[in-house]
């Protein structure tokens, strides 16, 4: 059933999940956002493209999720002084996405008074000048600019005994770069402001130099820990444009890989969360199990993290009965071991003391911020793309959406434990009922201008890829969207009132991606 908005024509898009696109004017853009927010919908992604080479100005798109399905609003703007109505009143998570749109494409989100919603850059530090927009068609892929001054305005907190602690961009551990500015009284955090974008390397521009067939490798390297989710989302987008019918077997093998990615990441996180709360034993045990999973991936599928195993039209692997037996055996062993470890975590008073009530994100805050993925599920919000009606092959696999209510570190730990067991169940189910079918379906040439989405529930949350085909099998525009865009602002809330020494634990309990949102 198509959504209804006065005066807006919805055009259905191909794919297994119901999706529409609609050209809107500025007023409809704003109204549609308000309307969908009022009905409990959310903003999934927001990005812009330069179509001046086709005489069509710039285009900003908002991808919304409502109960009907996915809705992509498209607003065209003239190139000069391009602007569009600010959506952050309806969807606070729009703020950083809108700033990135300005940094890369030069279209500004304006409030009803005509002011910039937030004039600060987000991805542009000092690598290119303020009046250059790298995703514009007239900017060459090889263009380089001398370093520019970079004076970022942080919000300052004033008051008696308040002081600031800046951390990063290079951190103490083996983690990605980002800057955190804490305002504290004593050790208690009054405010945290994040500044990200350090790993911005121009992925979206890079996509435009690639063929549709090759670009799946780049999609699989937007965020290395979610390579399966991104590659699948990209493949889904390309297949919807070229009308490929992926076999049921290949779809199930993709689900197998996605669940193995979830299992490996959850194992790793559970180890580090134990470690950060003082139980080094947990890290040793869980990292051993994770390594077992990675080694089996390498042996059976040829890559420890499963990079490049999903290809347009299907998968670059298959499983024979011997492999199925090994995988089933492994699933049983992991389940047994993790159940034993969970009992240890649950009984460990010191650990539970650190986990409980720490880094609590209130459900109403999570809803307002549009939080997704496991962080949302840990505050009782049952969002999971896999459970969306029509989502192949998951509709038949019937994944259980795991939720917890407390929204604290303990809840995010528990969601990981339960999801791990659920992924093992799904893995067994896939392996025991694998239909025959071809590995890769032939792909018709994608028509120039063809446009499609992919939407995959990665271990962290939902990953989107929006893809537009260019001439002769090239990528015209590709926008990958990481769930971390929505969830990073939530970390700023979850830390409030906690003490600075608990930040690493709270941060780890979200385990958000820098690379995925920096692009």
């Amino acid at each position, binding site marked *: 059933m198509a959504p209804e908005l006065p005066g807006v024509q919805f055009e259905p898009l191909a794919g297994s999940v119901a999706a529409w696109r609609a050209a809107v004017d500025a007023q409809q853009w704003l109204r549609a956002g308000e309307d969908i927010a009022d009905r409990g919908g959310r903003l999934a992604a927001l990005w812009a493209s330069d179509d001046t080479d086709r005489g069509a100005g710039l285009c900003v798109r908002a991808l919304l999720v409502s109960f009907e399905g996915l809705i992509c609003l498209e607003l065209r703007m003239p190139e000069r002084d391009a602007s569009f109505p600010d959506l952050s009143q309806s969807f606070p998570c729009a703020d950083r996405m809108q700033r990135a749109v300005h940094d890369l494409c030069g279209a500004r989100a304006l409030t009803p008074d005509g002011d910039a919603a937030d004039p600060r850059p987000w991805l542009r530090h000092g*690598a290119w000048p303020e009046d250059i927009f790298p995703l514009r068609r007239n900017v060459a892929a090889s263009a380089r600019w001398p370093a520019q001054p970079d004076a970022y305005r942080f919000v300052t907190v004033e008051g008696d005994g308040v002081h600031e602690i800046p951390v990063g961009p290079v951190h103490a551990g*083996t983690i990605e770069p980002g800057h955190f500015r804490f305002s504290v009284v004593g050790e208690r955090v009054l405010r945290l402001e994040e500044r990200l974008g350090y790993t911005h390397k*121009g*992925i979206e521009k890079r996509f435009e130099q690639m063929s549709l067939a090759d670009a799946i490798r780049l999609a699989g*390297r937007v965020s*290395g820990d979610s390579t399966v989710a991104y590659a699948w989302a990209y493949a889904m987008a390309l297949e919807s444009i070229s009308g490929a019918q992926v076999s049921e077997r290949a779809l199930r093998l993709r689900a197998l890989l996605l669940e193995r990615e979830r299992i490996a990441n959850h194992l790793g996180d559970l180890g580090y969360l134990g470690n950060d709360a003082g139980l080094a034993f947990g890290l040793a045990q869980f990292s*051993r199990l994770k390594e077992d999973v990675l080694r089996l991936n390498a042996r059976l599928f040829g890559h420890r993290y499963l990079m490049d195993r999903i290809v347009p039209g299907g998968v670059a692997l298959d499983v024979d009965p011997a492999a199925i037996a090994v995988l089933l055996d492994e699933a049983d062993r992991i389940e047994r071991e993790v159940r034993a470890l969970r009992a240890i975590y649950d009984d460990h008073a010191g650990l539970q003391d650190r986990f409980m009530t720490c880094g609590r994100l209130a459900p109403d805050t999570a809803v307002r911020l549009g939080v997704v993925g496991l962080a949302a599920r840990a505050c009782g919000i049952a969002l999971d793309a896999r459970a969306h009606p029509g989502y192949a092959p998951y509709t038949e696999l019937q994944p259980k959406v795991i939720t917890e209510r407390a929204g604290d570190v303990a809840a995010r730990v528990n969601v990981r434990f339960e999801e791990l067991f659920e992924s093992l169940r799904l893995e067994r189910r896939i392996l025991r009922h694998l239909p025959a079918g071809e590995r890769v379906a032939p792909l018709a040439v994608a028509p120039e201008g063809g446009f499609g989405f992919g939407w995959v529930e990665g271990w962290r949350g939902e990953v989107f890829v929006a893809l537009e085909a260019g001439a002769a099998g090239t990528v015209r525009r590709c926008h990958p969207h990481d769930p971390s865009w929505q969830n990073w602002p939530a970390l700023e809330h979850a830390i409030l009132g906690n003490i600075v020494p608990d930040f690493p634990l709270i941060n780890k309990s979200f385990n958000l991606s820098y690379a995925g949102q920096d692009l």
Partner: protein
Amino acid sequence: MHKLLRQIVKVGIRTEAPPQADDSLRQITDRLNQEVLRLLGRALAIRHVDAGSCNGCELEIHALANPYYNIEGLGIRFVASPRHADMLMVTGPVSRNMEQALRRTYEATPEPKLVLAIGDCGCSGGIFGDGYASCGRVASVIPVDVAVPGCPPPPAAIMQGILTAVRAPAQGFR
């Protein structure tokens, strides 16, 4: 508590088995330990810098700490400050937004120092290449002693890279 102890006893020690003729990994780890001790007479201190990676290489650096590779047991420590480091381990193509931070970290590392570039990205810029926001390979920003290819390079390859760097020390490294 007794569950915990039981688990420890049940699992036992999983650090890879002692040398076997075809056990290449074990040879690397043994040699590594001896070389590190011979050259430094103490633990090798490594500072990791993510200069723009996709985070895939970081996963393998983390894996070095798991019980199979047990890198700490080989006399190699990851340290929190470049001032305590003998070696920088740099991942990713260097993003323009990290160029200066990487240079500063390099300058803050006391001489003599070694630089290991990790992954196809660190070696050549990888799939991201050079562009308006990427400087490409690590060597375009700071001098690199050893580069370890792979996307991402598996833990054994990273260990081999460390060994190579330690065995073929940079000018004045001793």
